[in-house]
């Protein structure tokens, strides 16, 4: 097709402005898709972190807060609740399993979670996956710790290393439980959840390192050595939260109500899914704003393309007149210009998508490590495909503006080639 070849050569003749136009569209498309990817990635990361748990129990607080600190290690517990309440709830006939969680200490910026071996048995993520040990074992000693994949990777720990747990939650602890070091017994396989960034120890160990401590400081003369605490009775007095699995899903709301109305102590029981919905509601406004901004960036890029085509139109009047003189219909000229706009947009969309995947490929490990954001490199979804198609269509339609202008001019110019 000589006419197509000439159209491409015409574009090639203006290659710099064409290239810049394509790049502008590409970046805008990359932004639009990137925001969507991060949004979905964040949602998936959150939604995949916990599954199979029917209720989360904690001291009375907002459901979102409880979910965030107990499962996502974001923020702090308002309060702990007593072991006595925990033991009574555990006896509830509808409850299949219950796992206690104790938080409050950290190791070099990673949170320390005290729990029981039931945690490894019942914790589920990403639709039913269980925690697996990558190296070492779960450990049975009081001062055994099981660390998440990211902890091991970032700090370079191996099975058998000694670690000291700091009191409180800063990345730099001024007060450390250095008299009772732990041994890394095992490293958990990568999960893509906050578990990767957690140091797991037993509930008793949490109790043990705090023997002789009051109000966040060790009281001189009352502290016990590691050997001494081993002989002690280390039943915890309080825990932060408990994950609950029920025998029947039908009982969820009944059990939730009973826990919420528990008389001895103010408690909250939340459904993880419902709390997540609350979170989505909260961030939806920000997400909408981001999507709107990136949509506007795309519109700006298309306007830039329009400007480029319109600017070139004047110097291309000769081209139009020549085409008309050899028998090109005005419709051909209209089609050429609209096709040029469509082609530029399509090239931008393809380039932008390619750039996004390249960026994803490069940044994925960093995002995963730094923010725990696990972005999947999957082909564009149907919705994304529709968005991309809509952008190309919008570009084509935008191209009709200069096309109609050229059409009208080519009618008015007649044989005269006005330059």
């Amino acid at each position, binding site marked *: *097709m*000589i*006419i197509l*070849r*000439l159209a491409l*050569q*015409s574009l*090639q*003749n203006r290659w710099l402005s064409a290239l810049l136009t394509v790049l502008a569209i590409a970046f805008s498309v990359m932004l639009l898709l990137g925001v969507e990817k991060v949004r979905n990635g964040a949602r998936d990361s959150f939604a995949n972190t916990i599954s199979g748990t029917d209720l989360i129990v904690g001291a009375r607080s907002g459901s979102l807060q409880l979910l965030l600190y107990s499962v996502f290690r974001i923020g702090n517990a308002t309060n702990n609740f007593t072991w006595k309440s925990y033991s009574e709830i555990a006896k509830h006939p509808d409850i299949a399993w219950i796992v206690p969680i104790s938080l409050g200490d950290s190791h070099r910026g990673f949170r320390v979670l005290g729990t029981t071996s039931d945690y490894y048995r019942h914790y589920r993520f990403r639709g039913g996956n269980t925690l697996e040990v990558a190296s070492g074992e779960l450990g049975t000693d009081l001062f055994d710790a099981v660390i998440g994949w990211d902890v091991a990777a970032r700090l370079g720990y191996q099975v058998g290393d000694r670690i000291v747990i700091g009191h409180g939650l800063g990345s730099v602890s001024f007060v450390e439980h250095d008299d009772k070091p732990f041994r890394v017994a095992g490293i958990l396989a990568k999960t893509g959840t906050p578990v990767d960034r957690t140091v797991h120890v037993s509930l008793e160990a949490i109790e043990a390192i705090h023997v002789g401590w009051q109000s966040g400081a060790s009281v001189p003369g009352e502290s016990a050595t590691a050997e001494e605490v081993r002989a002690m009775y280390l039943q915890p007095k309080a825990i932060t939260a408990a994950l609950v699995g029920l025998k029947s899903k039908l009982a969820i709301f009944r059990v939730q109500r009973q826990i919420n109305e528990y008389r001895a102590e103010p408690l909250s029981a939340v459904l993880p899914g419902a709390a997540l919905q609350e979170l989505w509601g909260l961030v939806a406004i920000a997400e909408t704003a981001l999507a709107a901004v990136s949509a506007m960036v795309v519109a700006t890029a298309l306007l830039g393309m329009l400007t480029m085509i319109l600017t070139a139109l004047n110097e291309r009047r*000769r*081209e139009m*007149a*020549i*085409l*008309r*003189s*050899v*028998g*090109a*219909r*005005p*419709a051909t000229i209209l089609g050429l210009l609209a096709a040029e706009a469509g082609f530029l947009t399509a090239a931008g969309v393809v380039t932008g998508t390619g750039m996004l995947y390249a960026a994803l490929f490069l940044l994925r490990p960093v995002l995963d490590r730094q923010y725990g954001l696990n972005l999947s490199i999957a082909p564009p979804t149907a919705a994304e495909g529709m968005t991309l198609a809509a952008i190309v269509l919008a570009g084509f339609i935008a191209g009709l503006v200069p096309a109609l202008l050229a059409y009208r001019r080519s009618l008015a110019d*007649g*044989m*005269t*080639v006005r*330059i």
Partner: protein
Amino acid sequence: MVDQTIQPELKNVPARPGTAQDIVRLSEVHFAWPGQRSFSLAIDHFSVSRGERLMLIGPSGGGKSTFLSLLSGILTPQRGTVEILGTDIARLSGAARDRFRSEHFGIIFQMFNLLPYGSVIDNVLLPLHFSRTRRDRARAGTTLEAEAARLLRKLGLEERLIRGLCAASLSVGQQQRVAAARALIGRPELIVADEPTSALDRGRQEGFLDLLFAEAETSGSTIIMVTHDETLGRHFSRVVHLSEVARSRREAA
């Protein structure tokens, strides 16, 4: 009705008025630019016989380009008939008129004839994209590219320039030769040229016309050329002043 006053000027081609020999016949044509009344052009009768080499002389701004646009169907008159090869193109639809032009016309502008980014050969082959008849004629017994190269060679373009990838690098004279080859390819019945030699110096003007006419003769094309330069008149079979056939009116808006 045919205007008898033009016919005596015919020199080489004997023509019977109003016969099938007339390749072009305009009658009672009136044209004004749409939306503005300041300029109008009226042609009572004008005809051209097959094989003629007609020179149309008129001053700049005298409606020469408008006249050629009407003739080739780029513009349509408000009144009257524009018969080309027996077809009244003023009655055709826009698309049909464009197709008709691509089939039967070769057009050469004063300058800026070529798509500057296209190759020389592609520029010559351009009209064939729009006309099947001319494509078939050009392809008869050869390839399109070979035919384009043959015409360019005949018109005196150097061999290395024929294979040129960028028409913009040619000189004005060379560009006009390429434009002539484009007008001639596929042997259209009519070659219409709007001051094709005005950008050339005197010596080259004559050489260009000789080559153009020789090729037009071979392909049996009729030539209509407008110019403001009467000195080239001896190359033509008939010289007509635009003022004799057309009345143009220009009013202050």
